[in-house]
């Protein structure tokens, strides 16, 4: 039931918009089947499936907005939800920043659905768990992991003629492997839209190797080090920084992208010349919906940072209009350019440094400079003369991604990763960075 065909969705939306007597009406259907299996202590701990579909209706009378939702789809229910939204709109105060619904848009094609992911069932999930647990049991290691898969659709229509329908899938696998004595820990993550090439039995070997290799960690003094951040480790810092790419905040003087004396840093060299970042809804392997969540504006490929210069920020429709800028969709994904080297290649050219497998519990310390704090986790190693010498105890860092991206030695080959800090699809390279600031040691394994 949760994935309606385009014809089914269009028929419901057409009725809903037709019922409205408001100045404008936008209706949206979202449905998904979400399955998961979670395991820990080398056993499955929970497993489940959730089936949900919702219809939301937003109407406006002048600058007054009301929204209501329902999950029944007979004609009486559809009319009732429209009337409820209209009642709420009449109660709401006017919003001076109200923006009318967009007119008919043209959306690019993006490849967001995979039949193999949509076909995942309880037996598949159980196999992922056993493929992860089995090798760990055999080598006296302990696995704790999680697979979540989702297949769903989104469809919308408004009274100004705009319409869209798209199906999508995703799967996210993570597993932490610990040694029995708790002295070693490793992690692996695999975030994909298509599970055709996913093999938990292969992935688990990465986490197992890191778990075994990270035991017997030595303590290094905190301080500034050359680091190699694996993509999963870099993603958390980059994702956090992207929360603060709002043009309005910058123009209002309360962002790291604000310019002293007023305005923002568009066009300025904010990062090192190696840094280039863009968003592209059709990016192979990291495609997203071709419209944004808020206003259904069409997403398109757009540069954000070019050779270290800031070339785009996120503009709300209201702020675009106020600043005389063309309307643009909010970023749907983040793609960073890199090189061709693997993490292992970056290690080989490092005289002294720290390899960070994963970062953890990243939080803002000072928004003025995007100073972030967080910790390393699940595999931190000392590098000397191009080789991993020994595991080291985890560090707390206090570092700004802006400073970090001004201290780039080299980027490796970008890969798709999912950050703990954000649901945004990201393609991030491994990064070799100088003078990364660790401020204390952690005893945590």
């Amino acid at each position: 039931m949760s994935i309606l065909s385009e014809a089914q969705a269009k028929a419901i939306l057409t009725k809903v918009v037709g019922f409205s007597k408001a100045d404008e009406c936008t209706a949206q259907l979202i449905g998904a089947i979400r399955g998961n299996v979670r395991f820990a202590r080398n056993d499955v701990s929970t497993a489940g499936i959730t089936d949900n579909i919702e219809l939301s209706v937003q109407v406006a009378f002048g600058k007054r907005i009301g929204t209501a939702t329902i999950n029944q789809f007979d004609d009486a229910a559809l009319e009732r939800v429209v009337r409820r939204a209209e009642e709420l709109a009449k109660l709401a105060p006017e919003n001076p920043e109200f923006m009318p619904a967009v007119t008919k848009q043209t959306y690019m094609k993006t490849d967001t659905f995979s039949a193999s992911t949509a076909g995942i069932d309880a037996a598949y999930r159980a196999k992922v768990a056993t493929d992860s647990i089995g090798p760990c049991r055999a080598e006296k290691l302990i696995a704790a992991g999680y697979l979540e898969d989702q297949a769903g659709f989104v469809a919308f229509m408004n009274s100004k003629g705009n319409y869209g329908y798209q199906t999508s899938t995703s799967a996210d696998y993570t597993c932490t492997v610990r040694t029995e004595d708790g002295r070693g820990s490793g992690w692996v993550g695999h975030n994909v839209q298509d599970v055709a090439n996913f093999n938990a039995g292969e992935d688990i070997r990465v986490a197992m190797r890191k778990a075994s290799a990270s035991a017997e960690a030595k303590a290094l003094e905190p301080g500034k080090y050359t680091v190699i951040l694996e993509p999963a480790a870099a993603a958390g810092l980059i994702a956090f920084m992207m929360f603060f790419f709002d043009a309005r905040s910058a123009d209002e003087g309360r962002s790291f992208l604000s310019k002293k004396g007023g305005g923002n840093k568009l066009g300025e060299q904010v990062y090192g010349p190696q840094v280039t970042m863009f968003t592209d809804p059709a990016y192979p392997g990291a495609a997203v919906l071709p419209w944004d969540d808020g206003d259904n504006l069409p997403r398109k490929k757009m540069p954000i940072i070019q050779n270290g210069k800031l070339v785009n920020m996120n503009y709300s429709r209201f702020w675009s209009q106020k600043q005389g800028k063309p309307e643009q969709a909010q970023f749907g994904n983040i793609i960073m350019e890199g090189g061709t080297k693997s993490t292992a290649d970056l290690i080989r050219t490092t005289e002294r440094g720290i390899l960070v497998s994963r970062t953890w519990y990243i939080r803002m310390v000072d928004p003025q400079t995007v100073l972030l704090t967080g910790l390393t986790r699940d595999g931190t190693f000392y590098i000397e003369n191009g080789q991993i010498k020994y595991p080291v105890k985890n560090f707390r860092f206090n570092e700004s991604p802006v400073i970090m991206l001004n201290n780039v030695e080299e980027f490796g080959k970008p890969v798709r990763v999912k950050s703990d800090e954000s649901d945004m699809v990201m393609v991030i390279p491994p990064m070799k960075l100088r003078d990364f600031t660790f401020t204390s040691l952690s005893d945590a394994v």
Partner: protein
Amino acid sequence: MGVGGLVLPSMFGKVIAAEELSSAIDVAVKKALADAAMNAAKSAGASYCDVRVGRYLRQFVITRERNVENVVNTESTGVGIRVIANGAWGFAATNDMTKEAVAKAAGQAVAIAKANAPGQSAPVQLAPVTGVGEVSWRTPIVKNSMTVPIKDKVDLLMGVNAAALDAGASFIRSILFLVNEQKYFASTDGSYIDQDVHRIWAPMEVTAVDKATGKFRVREGLSAPMGLGYEYLDGAASGKTVLPNGVIVYGQSYDMKEDAVAAAKQAMAKIKAPSVKPGKYDLVLDPSHTWLTIHESVGHPLELDRVLGYEANYAGTSFATMDKLKANFQYGSDKVNIVADKTQPGSLGAVSYDDEGVKTKKWDLIRDGKLVGYQAIRDQAHIEGKTASDGCAYADSWSNVQFQRMANVSLEPGKAKLSVADMISNVEDGIYIIGDGSFSIDQQRYNAQFGGQLFYEIKKGKITQQIEDVAYQIRTPEFWNGCAGVCDASDYRLGGSFFDGKGQPAQVSAVSHGSSTARFNGINVINTARSLG
């Protein structure tokens, strides 16, 4: 993994009309759905089944400066069914509120359990619970927030925002966040428990910008999310405490407009305040700050699922391992007494029964500084050697499975009479911290770093000036063993979070933490100021 910040309402369910906020699903209907699910589960081979019929109502009024950005009513209704079959757990949920749909979901849950059973090394063991039949409970509120007219709420926030802007703030964002969880739990143990849970939160963020220097500072509100009705916003004098430096903090009642004016002035003062000199200080921590340190460095590490490794892949494990419980590990100084409590009036976590149908209670975690207990639920109790759950299972939605969540975990006030002024008068070189700020802690809860909203230098027993750029770093056992005193019960207040995150799929829960002002000696303070050139 930890507490979160402000979250957009879209993640909380569908949006509904105002008139539905005072209604509830008929208990007979909920019982019929629960019985249909349990019968189907048993027929399919389940040895145990519980059913949660949930209706989750939330209302948001979101403003910035002189505009109301949105007024949103959301509802999420559905049924979650958890079963044990062949010794393994299975879970399925549906928003289709028909007997046929819940029976089908029950069958899916059993099928999932059976698919996972062959790989299990041992069957699930549940601590016993005696069914309580049909019972009900409601948060003891005075005013149901959901039925207060929208106009009153808009007028309140517009008044708050105007007061802050008139007092010199450059920007203000204020929100009312109101929650009503209508939760019905039934299980094959023979319980049918209907609970009506209410919570309220009124956060704000006041920003001052100095365009000449390009500096900006934010002072967040000093309120706490509470398990109270709209009466929390009455601003009663009995809820106010004036601290020795003149800062006003709040207990069971909040004066939002008064706090907004203070926030505007203090945000401007933060821009000009001198930067802290890093080093070791004695910290005097107000309860509006300490709640978060308790949450991260005591509440989480003493969750048994973390201790056992169930959260190893996401939220992490715990340094407070079971051998430390057996040895009554010296977690803190003898001034440190910490309790878990799912019954505390006005707290976010207060309910009569948890989401496994277990009667809630209060119990010791740390007594005279020694570790004496964890927080455990039904399928973990036997691992700790206990015969009963502590009653701290929770699910944030009908669509998510219940699991172990933190109870209200609080530092007991000192038994001897001690005021905040008296405590400060004995501090030679210290920092007084008010309000919660930045927070981060490692996956075993050893190394943590905390900021705050307001920082004041203490020299020779006197508060000398407001300072900035303060964060302190701790190693949990050393920090709590550095606790040199806790003020008496007259200073006891609650803080808390609406968004304590944990689990996969990630769930949030609301939890309170109480304390009186407390002193911690010899804590490492860093300076967080940086330059982007």
